[in-house]
């Protein structure tokens, strides 16, 4: 019942930002293109009756032909949950930062930048968070080459008498 009302609101929002609504394992997923993300999340935050106003998680996702930024929204005052996916181009991964809506997105966006190289426009301090500053490449992308196990084993063996 509640889910139905929420679904109506999500569909209304989807029509506004030209997105698609799906239902995966009982959870609503709203897919939009990157330029609409602020509009979408502001809309979701201000849903009448069922505001999805708590940013639960933000992460990157590599789908080989494009990247996605996944926002898990929920609320501290109700059971509503919504997953918003923003499609980002692989060659030019730029999206608006949501730190203006939730300060809590700060570290999460830095992590997505660190691991996927997604550029969050308007982030106050967009630096690598886990890897060191002059690290090259984005480790969680599918095309990132990790060294094969044979190479690692060679590095580990010591020459006798060393």
């Amino acid at each position, binding site marked *: 019942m509640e889910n139905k009302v929420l679904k109506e609101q999500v569909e209304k929002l989807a029509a506004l930002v030209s997105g698609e609504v799906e239902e995966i394992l009982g959870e609503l997923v709203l897919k939009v293109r990157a330029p609409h993300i602020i509009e979408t999340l502001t809309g979701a935050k201000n849903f009448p009756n069922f505001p999805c106003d708590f940013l639960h998680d933000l992460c990157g996702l590599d789908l080989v032909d494009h990247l996605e930024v996944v926002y898990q929204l929920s609320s501290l005052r109700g059971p509503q949950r919504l*997953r918003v996916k923003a499609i980002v181009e692989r060659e030019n991964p730029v999206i608006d930062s949501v730190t203006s809506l939730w300060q809590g997105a700060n570290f999460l966006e830095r992590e997505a930048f660190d691991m996927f190289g997604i550029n969050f426009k308007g982030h106050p301090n967009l630096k690598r968070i886990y890897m060191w500053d002059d690290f090259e490449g984005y480790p969680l992308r599918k095309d990132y080459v990790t060294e094969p196990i044979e190479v690692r084993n060679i590095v580990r063996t010591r020459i006798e008498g060393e």
Partner: protein
Amino acid sequence: MTIENTEELILNMGPQHPSMHGLFRMVVNLEGETVTKIEPKLGYLHRGMEKLAESRTYAQFIPYTDRLDYLASPHNNWAYVQTVEKLMGVEIPERAEYLRVIFGELARIASHQVCIASTALDMAGWSAWSYAFRDRERICDMYEMTAGSRLTVNIMRIGGIIEPPAEFWPALKSFLNDTPEMIEEYNGIFFGNEIAQGRLKSVGILSKELAENLSITGPVLRASGVNYDVRKAEPYSIYDRFDFNVPVRYGCDSYDRTIIRLDEIVESIKIIKQAVRDIPEGPVMAKVPKVIKPPVGEVYHRVENPKGELGFYIVSDGTTKPARVRIRPATFINLQMLPIVCLGWKIQDVVAIFATLDAVLGEVDK
């Protein structure tokens, strides 16, 4: 003589500082003794768990989750296996659910005991530390009986859990019998202590609005006056069968953030007592295929970890290895309050505020 032209001092706290609970480093700008800016630096324990998961099968990743929040490893196992079960649509036996709740709540007690102990230790309260650690030993012994290890237990399987041996039940019973005395001791030696109260009360105020905006979860959020617990709001496993309260405190300060863990220990004991009373006989493993191959799809699942909400987001491409495993660590996100809340406090208060966050760097750095 008056001092003129004072200079801002930049102090590196960590990564090997004893109050940093692991390998956490922060760069603190000081004006005299007052903090003007804090910048947390993470990544000293970064092992790339999410990348490792992509080259392992679903079952092979369970021992890695132990190393996330290593003070409550059954909880991490639980969150992960439940996510995979949700993706596969596996129903697990009754007895396994009850055992999971018992081990989960024992882990919560152990984790909160470490929090109380290390908060006391950071304020030089050695005796409170030793009391809490003495009691935690008994929980570690119970882990050892069941799993063979004391810290990273790797106790859950996709579709069930290990059956504890016969000597586990008397040990649990005697532990539960001693808990009222235990809680009284913590109250007397630490929470009732004037020095501890002086160091913690009204230090590091985190308002309700700020906590919600910063996506803070768990006891830190509840100490700021928000009544929210996943176990009540969205009962997973069999939490809807138990009668327990969600402790909420309204002080928003470091003292409430610490003492709320004691309240949670009391509630956890209530849950364990009910679970021990109601536990049925039966199998502890569901019938799951030998090769775990979830259908194509994605799932997000969260549980109430002792430190906050732990979430797993798994994307499956229909093969034996996950396409993406996203871990939503609770303390990583809770840490964001540090640069905001610590401003204007003295350097020793920063240590107190950081201790009450109960950060475990295994979880922060993944």
